[in-house]
């Protein structure tokens, strides 16, 4: 098991290294000059050149990359034009917002986490629960209702569902405040009431996929011989379906969940925009619009970290669920 973990972590590190190199090279591949971006008009070439020197843009590519990486690991000094000392994890300086990128991230990442983590818990419970129940009640009205629900979830768009939720619960019934982000530690109740619509909207759309997937998986598993064995032993239906069937049916769901959660943590642009929340997704989109390269790099890198971490976690879960995986 330990060897398994080391192997997975090693390949994860390798992936992250590749992503960091690519996102760093993007900095140079894009037809934008960060320095001209800093001073859009009437900057004399001399001053531009001085700034380039100051930023280290005239250094060899490798030493620039090394500097960037060093900043992430140990922090570094960016010079007076970029706020001076930049503590680890230093992701550079944004010319657009005039602050350290790590400060921006520290502000917006909790928002995305607060949206995605509770929503993921909701959509997994709802999706898998619905899928299992409709598999066990195949052909009944419950099954048909679940299929209808997941069809709706699969075909509707988040900005539509979000708008309907806002219209009903915020503007008509006035049960909930206009969505906003309050840190969980400040006031858990306001944190939840400000985000609950985003959770519901995300959970509705995502659980549709999970309901379908787990229904199909469950139906397949229910016809497995070992489920028949479990019943032939005289086990009760909850044991047969829960301990024997569900555990075998859940593995593909775990995979998809890992990818979805990892991806969503990198930013949920549409959700954030629909509910007026400022998370990773909107930050990334804004950075692209304004050509804020250090912020773009940071968001790409962080999104990659989440996806890679989610994959490692999925692998570990797989090994925990299926003993045969541990051998490989």
């Amino acid at each position, binding site marked *: 098991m330990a060897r398994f973990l080391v192997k997975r972590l090693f390949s994860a590190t390798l992936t992250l290294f590749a992503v960091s190199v690519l996102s760093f090279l993007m900095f140079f591949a894009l037809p934008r000059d960060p320095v001209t971006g800093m001073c859009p008009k009437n900057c004399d070439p001399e001053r531009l050149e001085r700034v380039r020197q100051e930023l280290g843009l005239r250094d060899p590519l490798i030493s620039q990359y090394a500097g960037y990486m060093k900043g992430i690991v140990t922090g570094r000094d960016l010079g007076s034009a970029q706020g001076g000392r930049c503590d680890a994890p230093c992701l550079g300086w944004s010319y657009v917002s005039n602050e350290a990128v790590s400060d921006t991230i520290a502000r917006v990442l909790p928002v995305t986490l607060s949206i995605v983590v509770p929503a993921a818990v909701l959509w997994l419970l709802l999706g898998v629960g619905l899928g299992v129940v409709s598999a066990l009640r195949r052909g009944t009205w419950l099954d048909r209702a679940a299929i209808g629900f997941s069809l709706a979830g699969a075909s509707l768009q988040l900005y539509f569902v979000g708008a309907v939720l806002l219209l009903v619960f915020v503007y008509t019934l006035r049960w909930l405040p206009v969505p906003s982000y309050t840190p969980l530690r400040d006031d858990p109740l306001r944190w939840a009431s400000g985000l609950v619509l985003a959770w519901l909207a995300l959970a509705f759309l995502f659980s549709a996929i999970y309901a379908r997937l787990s229904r199909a998986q469950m139906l397949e598993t229910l016809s*497995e*011989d*070992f489920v*028949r*064995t*479990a*019943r*032939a*032993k*005289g*086990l*009760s239906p909850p*044991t047969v379906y829960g301990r*024997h069937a569900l*555990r*075998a049916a859940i593995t593909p769901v775990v995979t998809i969940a890992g990818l979805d959660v990892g991806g969503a943590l990198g930013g949920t642009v549409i959700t954030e925009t629909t509910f007026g929340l400022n998370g990773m997704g909107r930050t990334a989109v804004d950075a692209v619009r304004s050509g804020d390269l250090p912020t773009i790099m940071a968001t790409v890198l962080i999104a990659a970290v989440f996806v890679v971490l989610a994959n490692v976690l999925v692998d570990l879960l797989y090994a925990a*669920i*299926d*003993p*045969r995986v541990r051998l490989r």
Partner: protein
Amino acid sequence: MDSPQAAPSGPPAVGPAVPGQRVDDEPYLRVDDLRVRFATADGVVRAVDGVSFTVRRGRTLGIVGESGSGKSVTSLAVLGLHDPRRSTVSGTITLGGRQLVGLPEKQVRRLRGRDVAMIFQDPLSALHPYYTVGRQIAEAYRVHHPRVGRRAARARAVELLDRVGIPQPARRHDQYPHEFSGGMRQRAMIAMALVNDPALVIADEPTTALDVTVQAQILDLLADLQAEFRTAIVLITHDLGVVAQVADDVLVMYAGRVVERGSVAQVLRRPQHPYTWGLLSSVPSLHGDADADLVPIPGNPPSLIHLPSGCAFHPRCRYADRTGDRARTQVPQLGPAGADGHLVACHLPPDARTRLAAGSPSERRMP
């Protein structure tokens, strides 16, 4: 199979035990006029259509037939494993005096694995891949012994693994099915079936997925355990060699019906039904003429939705013409076939059947 008291013709009478008779003489399992139907989109599948048989403790009944003949459906009915939403089961199944058909699921569940246990064909797929072998055995034990603790259940599982001839049972207890060899897995499966000392074990093709050498070991093991615990065994197989080796009585099924039944000696030495002849001549014999051709039964098993009229076997039967129109128009009933307790469902006149049966397989081939 049939006790001498039972009427030699027709299904055996069902009723309370005759007073004064030893309980042991009363068959442990009594299946009477069992019918299992599945409603499908294409029509009603008559998977089992009026099957009757009995098995006493310490005896083995072999059920033989091609795939789709209703062997496995019959056995699942005895365990009450058919989904009532998708199937209809009628007739009576009496297990140690209790009527099973129509019994509430909760009560059937209490019998399952305790009074009647099942051994499945492919132990690799029949064992759960994610749980250790020992845990699965202990689980089967604890569900029927709720007061037994984890440690006692483990000890019981190790004991059973040892009993079925698995070396280092304590170590094997904690291994997963994929770490077992095929034969060991089937032994573990048998251990799981026997953990509650069931009076009846149904073995559905228990050796089909195994190497030939391992097959013999598993059959020996079953016979040993049967001698020790006086278990009644229903052995479902398509392998007549297996039947000859371990069964006392044989039931030959075709298209959901019993076409012939009797003792092993009766059915294998003096088979009375053309289908049984076909089965026998499609099996190579170790002792007979090695050069003799194997003769397959022509055609395919019939659709259970649109059964052939009359005798379901008539489209594949070489002798159907000898019965006039009856093979096509009348369903043959199970009736006496010469020797005591030997029954056959065939329209052929007894003397013609006896003449054909006495002939060698090659003679039978040429009508």
